[in-house]
């Protein structure tokens, strides 16, 4: 039994003056249009989102109602920035188990309805609130500490990190759903204001509102679609959330474990990946991902971006939809957004950003600073 993707939808990411359920409606309708189904054909709606950003409580119920899904079942799946990857994995399991045939997986996040003080307060509670947050740690601060450690162990440079931002903005400029559709230069990135040393503003992705949706179904139904895309490998793992309890700080251990599981299930090796979307919440995170996913040897991530190996035409094009960096990062929507891009690439529908002949796509979605990681492999 395989699970297939038959419908995709992706809303515009950025500052959206709409409610969370209105945000959800756009990609949901698009995904249903894409496969010619109606709500009555769906067995459930599984929502991935991080509820702490929303004013609206009991999110999936409210969204299901607005999308016309009553009385079909719905529930929320949460794994911080990887929430909708967790939702996708849940849908996959339900389908493989034969409990549901066809499921809508929705990633949705409204982040920009919070006031600045509310955002600052949330920002102060990303780490272990018992032992770390009292020292003023922040989300960029954690990745900044990974960056300094990686620079120390492997000689990675700020210029290499800036090259990630330049690449992702280059491709994001061609993605109409991206929050920032503009090219940037390395000079501008390096000169931008410091957020948490060594990371500057252009090393960081931006909070955004956004939603993405996909319709997944069992093998029998998927085979009837024009170009079904198969969920070939699903891997997930965890690591200590606290940097005080994590042995190595120059890698995301959960990503290494999740990747191993996904490759094993799909029966492929890293070199078989034709195109990848990785979790570049910060530029250093993309460099860590190259290594954690086995795209290069440990410490080789900086060189990999520098030598253009992850550009289109390179060995493994990465984040050619713009990544979190250019698309924006609506926490709960990011996982499904990555999966939607993988499906577009495998169908050959990625337009200017198409990687020719892509047969195998990988997505790598990190929750928080690596307490969760989901790696999925999709194929034609």
């Amino acid at each position: 039994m395989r699970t297939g993707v038959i419908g995709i939808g992706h809303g515009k990411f950025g500052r959206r003056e709409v409610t969370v359920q209105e945000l959800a409606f756009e990609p949901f309708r698009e995904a249903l249009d894409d496969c010619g189904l109606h709500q009555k054909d769906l067995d459930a709606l599984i929502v991935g989102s991080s509820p702490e950003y929303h004013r609206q409580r009991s999110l999936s119920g409210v969204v299901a109602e607005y999308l016309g899904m009553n009385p079909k079942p719905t529930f929320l799946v949460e794994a911080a920035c990887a929430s909708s990857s967790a939702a996708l994995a849940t849908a996959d399991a339900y389908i493989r188990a034969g409990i549901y045939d066809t499921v809508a997986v929705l990633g949705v996040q409204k982040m920009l309805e919070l006031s600045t003080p509310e955002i600052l307060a949330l920002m102060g509670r990303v780490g272990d609130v018992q032992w770390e947050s009292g020292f003023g740690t922040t989300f960029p601060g954690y990745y900044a500490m990974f960056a300094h450690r990686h620079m120390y162990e492997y000689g990675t440079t700020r210029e290499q990190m800036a090259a990630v931002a330049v690449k992702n903005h280059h491709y994001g400029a061609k993605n109409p759903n991206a929050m920032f559709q503009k090219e940037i230069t390395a000079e501008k990135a390096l000169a931008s204001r410091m957020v948490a040393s060594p990371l500057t503003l252009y090393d960081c992705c931006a909070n955004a509102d956004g939603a993405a949706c996909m319709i997944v179904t069992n093998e029998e139904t998927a085979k009837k679609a024009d170009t079904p895309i198969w969920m070939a490998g699903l891997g997930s793992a965890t690591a200590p959330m606290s940097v005080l309890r994590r042995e190595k700080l120059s890698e995301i251990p959960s990503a290494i474990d999740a990747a191993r599981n996904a490759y094993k299930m799909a029966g492929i090796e890293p070199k078989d990946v034709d195109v990848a979307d990785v979790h570049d919440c910060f530029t250093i995170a993309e460099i860590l991902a190259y290594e954690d996913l086995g795209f290069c040897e440990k410490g080789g991530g900086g060189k990999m971006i520098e030598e253009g190996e992850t550009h289109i035409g390179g060995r493994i094009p990465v984040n050619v939809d713009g990544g979190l960096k250019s698309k924006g990062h609506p926490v709960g929507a990011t996982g499904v957004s990555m999966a939607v891009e993988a499906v577009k690439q495998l169908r050959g529908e990625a337009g200017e950003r198409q990687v020719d002949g892509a047969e195998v796509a990988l997505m790598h979605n990190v929750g928080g600073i690596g307490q969760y990681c989901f790696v999925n492999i999709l194929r034609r």
Partner: protein
Amino acid sequence: MGKLGKVDFVPFSKVDGIEERLKEGKISATRCKKCKNIYLPPRMDCPECLDEEMEWVDCEGKGTLVTYTTIHAAPAGFEDDAPYTICLVDVEGGGRLVGWLDGKEEDLKIGMGVSVGIRDLPEERMIYFVTPEE
């Protein structure tokens, strides 16, 4: 947590008595009586043997700099402190802690020896401070 750190987020924990130890200038970890594992940050439940028999042990306050960052965009409660430098230190004897740097970021080298002390903050709070060793 028990007056440690500038802002307190956690009102209750099984880790009791750390405030008194901090006031005595002690950097303290817990040790499982059964498997002898040392926990810094301290905890009262051992995940190795799923046991709850713990005792306090004091550390020397010497360690190695693991990594660091200077926070410029500060969260709520730290607006007036920025920029401040956060250090992660592997403490001799076991465990790791986070502390604020007493010194200049430029002088830091990962892997260098550091000493850790405790300082008072306003409102009877306390914080670990990290000083590079020559």
